[in-house]
């Protein structure tokens, strides 16, 4: 076939591997005599056909193994997606989460029969509170975004309990998209807040926008520019003076472990992403696990049930009358709570600081190595990530997308691109503490080499990637006439 590269032949769809009558995996032997469904179900309620592919076990196995090989992963090489903390996922976590005593229990078995699980989650919540400086933690949110929603709902409920209604959320222009999206989901109005040239919040603008309709400031710490907000105490003081609350986006907690507790800085409520900071795997997009820490005044509004320790043992305490309500059918992504707990106990007190130290050191090393080759709009000591701007390269007719796609030809996964929005042609690099200096050097050299090619051979960048299983894909047609469900006619 013309144009088809032979290195990695394309993999057929599972539907194309099917053959009528081909047996799949055998179901268990019948334990009981069959009951004819038609004899017990109402007419019209038994389905006539079930159009699923019939594929043999070995073909299913090979299909998904071959698909997996068309992926990049942390266990293959550095995965420097800014804001995502793609660090090594310790294998002991997977062993722990699969222990039958943790994997098999049913949510509705008696509490006395799941004391170990309840103890684990209870201890995890206490430890997270200690690490981040919050009075109470819930691990019910399934991811960071859901933590944000619970946090904003708690703030609303707290305001209501004081007879106040406030509907505005201040969101810095550097914030992750989930912050404004969450504000809308909770019925609030977003007011953007500018960033000063030094990368901090613009305090004058903050003052100008603080009023008695402001329920909260949503602040990412360290910011999405990879910078620690230098006037953090002043920011939280001013928001509180105006009667508002400070919501902390803790997706970047990795930089702070053992170095500072955000709860000590005036932050009232903050989510932590266990799938970033605490090594639960990202799973190709999820599942994650969010945890939400709150100061004591917000605790009555948290979702229930919460795990409490009584003389008789651990118990599930139903939500109180002020709770914002549950956000998960049971207690959240428990499997990931087990992984996060295993990691935290592996690290211990000493390990925490080591994580932050090496994460920040690695990011600053890359900043130093890349600074001669790229513009860095906010170039000061950074925390866990460094944000470059592809502006120098754009003047050569090369966009950040081209740089990213060319990196793929080097076998290097590109950083996060075009985020944060306030940096032109942004390349957001988060190496994490689990990369070695050799790995950092290889990454830096690939990026420097691409920056050189931008000057000497820009067409290589425009045409990239050429060494991946596919070349650039037509997203416009994909959007205009979406093909999201395979049908035989295709």
């Amino acid at each position, binding site marked *: 076939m013309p144009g088809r590269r032979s290195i990695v032949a394309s993999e057929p769809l*599972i539907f194309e591997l099917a053959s009528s009558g081909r047996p799949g995996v055998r179901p268990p032997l019948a*334990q009981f005599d069959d009951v004819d469904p038609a004899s017990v179900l109402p007419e019209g309620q038994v389905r006539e056909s079930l159009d699923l592919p019939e594929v043999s076990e070995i073909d299913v196995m090979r299909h998904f193994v071959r698909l997996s090989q068309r992926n990049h992963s942390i266990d293959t090489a550095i995965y420097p997606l800014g804001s995502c903390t793609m660090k090594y996922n310790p294998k002991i976590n997977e062993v722990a989460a699969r222990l039958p005593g943790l994997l098999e229990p049913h949510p509705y078995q008696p509490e006395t029969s799941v004391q170990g699980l309840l103890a684990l989650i209870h201890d995890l919540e206490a430890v997270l509170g200690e690490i981040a400086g919050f009075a109470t933690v819930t691990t019910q949110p399934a991811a960071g975004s859901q933590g944000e929603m619970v946090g904003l709902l708690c703030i609303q409920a707290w305001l209501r309990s004081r007879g106040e209604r406030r509907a505005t959320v201040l969101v810095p222009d550097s914030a992750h998209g989930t912050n404004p999206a969450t504000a809308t989901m909770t019925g609030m109005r977003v007011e953007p807040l500018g960033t000063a040239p030094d990368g901090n919040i613009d305090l004058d603008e903050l003052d100008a926008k603080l009023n008695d309709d402001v329920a909260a400031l949503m602040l990412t710490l360290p910011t999405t520019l990879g910078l620690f907000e230098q006037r953090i105490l002043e920011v939280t003081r001013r928001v509180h003076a105006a009667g508002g609350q400070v919501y902390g986006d803790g997706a970047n907690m990795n930089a702070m472990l053992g170095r500072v507790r955000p709860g000590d800085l005036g932050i009232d409520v903050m989510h932590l992403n266990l799938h970033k900071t605490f090594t639960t795997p990202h799973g190709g997009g999820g599942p994650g696990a969010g945890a939400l820490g709150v100061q004591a005044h917000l605790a009555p509004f948290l979702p229930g049930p919460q795990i409490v320790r009584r003389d008789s043992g651990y118990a599930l305490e139903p939500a109180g009358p002020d709770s914002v309500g549950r956000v998960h059918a049971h207690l959240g992504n428990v499997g990931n709570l087990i992984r996060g707990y295993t990691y935290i106990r592996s690290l211990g007190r000493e390990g925490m600081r080591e994580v932050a130290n090496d994460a920040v050191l690695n990011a600053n090393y890359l900043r130093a190595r890349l600074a001669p080759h790229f513009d860095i709009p906010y170039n000061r000591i950074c925390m866990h990530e460094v944000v470059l701007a592809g502006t120098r390269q754009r003047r050569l007719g090369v966009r950040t997308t081209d740089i990213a796609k060319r990196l793929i030809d080097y076998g290097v996964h590109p950083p996060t691109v075009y985020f944060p929005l306030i940096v032109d042609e942004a390349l957001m690099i988060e190496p994490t503490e689990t990369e070695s200096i050799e790995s950092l050097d290889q990454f830096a050299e690939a990026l420097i080499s691409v920056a050189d090619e931008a000057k000497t051979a820009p067409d290589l960048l425009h045409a990239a990637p050429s060494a991946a299983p596919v070349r650039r894909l037509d997203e416009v047609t994909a959007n205009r006439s979406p093909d999201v469900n395979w049908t035989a006619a295709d």
Partner: protein
Amino acid sequence: MSYSPSTDADRARMLRTIGVNSTDDLFVDIPAAHRDPTLDLPEALPEVDVLRLVRGLADQNQIPEGVASFLGAGFYRHFVPALVDQQLLRSEWYTGYTPYQAEMTQGTLQSMYEFQSLVCRLTGMEVANASLYDGATALAEAVLMCRAITRRSGVVMAGTVHPAYREVAATYTQAVDVDIRTVDGWSRSDGGVAPDVEAVAAAIDDTTSCVVLQRPDFFGWVVDPTPVVEAAERHGAKIVYVVTDPISLGLLTPPGDLGADVVAGELRALVGPPAYGGPGAGMLATRKAFIRRLPGRIAGRTTDLDGQQGFVLTLQTREQHIRRERATSNITTNQALVALGAAISISALGPGGVRSLATRSLSAAHRCAAALKDVGATVFDAAPYFHEFILHAPRGGEATVDALAAHGVFGGYPLGRVAPALDDTLLVCATDLTTRADVEALTSAWQAIHRG
């Protein structure tokens, strides 16, 4: 132990390149008074020791190997082929992330496309997203979708929808203009408990954005939804079906054939045991016309510059990273790995396997009910059910559960937790993994606690 590979020599070299003297110099932006707190945390533990600790906690939990369990109520155990977990342990799947760079993540993108296509076939719908957090949040998002589509605020919620799902829908909609009206959808009499779809149908009016039914419902019943479908159509309301057990779709008429506009469900049972409730994966499927209202990731098939087939994240202008405060939802990280497991599981079982697990489950439940009747128990089975039924527990549901547990049997879910009128009932579930020995354990425990 931080899994950091750096040596002190590496660190010294990096510090020199940066031009600072010590790591402490990198943290000077943190207010000095709050820098370096003393954390009250335990010591670091090597692998063997941490595993010993966690195993100690695991061993305190009772599991079906030692107990005959008849618990369902939204969290089901079915046979899952061994290859599913072998796949999910592949680093290339579980240590990747959202496929932001399509050319480097074609495997994940194609698997998402296959997942969406399989969900459509199971549910009889036209489009599906790549997963949400769980079945309960899928319902919440479905309700928000219908509000956006119809610009109406009323929701008619059947009381036969899983109570935790209803709670989550209430949480998600509390701050926006949505008014959920819950209609029991069941009635209690001396003779038992019976469905009442007519009551749900009667609650639908011209302000109704959507009506929500579960199939099989929380009480295990499979009812003919026609009255609700007709009323919804008459009033221009959307119809949302909740499916808490995906295996049921192997046997039951799919929601797509019953007027569904949106299907919200939970897929955990295809991938593994209940895992104390999570991680599962929420599925959300709808009609083509509403694709731009779907929340979350969607993979699409397209071609590359050479015309070769390839896959991308598509319709991203619905999502928070592009649309920010105007996004359809704030969801970002989803439950991709569990969704992948569901796709692999369905592929490995095939249509015969999925159907057979469904039929076995139905048979096990009906045989179990018969065995209970044989020992003098009363089963409220006037209404047709799939793999869960209501057992009369004259001593009270909670007390009966406790008494059965003392005999090594998790006898079911006390329905009094849903409504006081059901205090004297248990919801009992059996599936393809229920054995004859389990049923014998239940019937003899039942006899033992009702003797004398």
